[in-house]
């Protein structure tokens, strides 16, 4: 079984590599690029811990083969340090106690960022549906849902600032 050549951008940097076709993207990132922020829980696409961005969209890296991502732009949790939404989410996760052991957190943050960008009007029930593909065994989800709500509310407050001045005062900075 011959190795295949692979070119992709990982967190903005171009990468060339030889990969075994059967190596999934998460193993490729963790084992050859030492990007261990991508966590592996179930390795069957159910738990969501390995969720990262391929061409800007959240995907499960445990059921996505690295070789199939030839030419793609991959962003892992490590590549989102300076992302404004991720900064707001990290602060909100801390404030709302949205993590305990932290194993699910990288995948939760990637999914949460997608909710914030794609569904600016999401309410708590919708956030729960959208988060249902990411399992957390510590928190019971309440803090995670609140953290996402907090960031969404702050962004809505900022957008309507001027129309309803000061309406976001109670939800804090994000």
């Amino acid at each position, binding site marked *: *079984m*011959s190795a*295949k050549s692979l070119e992709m951008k990982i967190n903005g940097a171009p990468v060339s590599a030889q990969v*075994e*076709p*059967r190596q*999934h993207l998460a*193993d490729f990132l963790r084992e050859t690029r030492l990007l261990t922020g991508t966590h592996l829980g179930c*390795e*069957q*696409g*159910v738990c*969501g811990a390995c*969720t990262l961005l*391929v061409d800007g*969209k*959240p*995907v*499960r890296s*445990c*059921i*996505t*083969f690295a*070789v*199939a991502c*030839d030419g793609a732009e991959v962003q892992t949790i490590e590549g989102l340090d300076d992302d404004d939404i991720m900064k707001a989410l990290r602060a909100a996760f801390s404030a709302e106690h949205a993590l305990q052991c932290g194993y699910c957190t990288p995948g939760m943050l990637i*999914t949460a960022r*997608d909710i914030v960008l*794609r569904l600016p009007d999401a309410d708590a029930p919708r956030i*729960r*549906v*959208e988060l*249902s*593909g*990411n399992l957390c065994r510590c928190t019971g989800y309440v803090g995670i849902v609140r953290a996402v709500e907090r960031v969404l509310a702050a962004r809505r407050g900022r957008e309507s600032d001027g129309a309803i001045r000061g309406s976001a005062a109670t939800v804090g900075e994000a």
Partner: protein
Amino acid sequence: MKPVAFDYERPRTLNAACALLASEDLLAKPLAGGQSLGPMLNMRLVQPDLLVDITRIPELWRVEEDKSVVVEIGACITHAAIEDGCVPGVTGGILASVAGGIAYRAVRNRGTIGGSLAHADPAADWVACLAALGAEVVLHGPAGQRTLPLGGFVVGALEVALEAGEVLEAVRVPILSPNARWGFYKFCRKTGEFAEAIGAVVHDPDRGVARAVIGATHSRPIVLEEASVIFGTAASGGRGSFDRNAASELMKAAGLDPDPYFFQVHLVALERAVDQL
């Protein structure tokens, strides 16, 4: 949880893909989004010699209307693209609604309509929804192109009528009339998981369609081509008029597993779908 070693090819044309898949010496499987195949590979339930990645073949990414009668959706169109409205009109409305309920967004971003149909899990949303819409599939093989009704394509659980060297190229969905009504209901114990029961109904009087589908059975879905009798007055806005007895009789006659829970959960899924008409 690692797949067996396999080879990987990424052809640029349908003919090249068919040639790779036609090999009699190798177990070759087409790979689109890999959202069903990926877990099966990781668990070694499938142990192929070769994966043929079909996602870089341009024809498989088309969404085209054919004479305003049919919309043809390329096999590699993702659930997320359909959820976001890449198919227009009333037909697009039902497709977007069903797509949005498949698994989770991260899965929908890669999972494809063609892959889901070719995998033919009885509990998959598209298998039931597209049966209710009366869709056909376009297959491309060494002998050229052929078209099959969905009922002739999905022949059983995880079993489809693809010949060696054939690829599912597109799905042809009849375009609904502006007055058409539809309902789709699935039971899941957890949001996003495979369904325990699915009810799907399409009522399009202008085209003479009154079809009901019972999905997530043990095999292919049960299609009731003439289901007006169970719609009652639901089709004209009379909610709650589902005819339970008529539906039970039809489902029994169609051979649905009579296990009391199994039967009941399918009956209620159908009732809730009819209630949406």
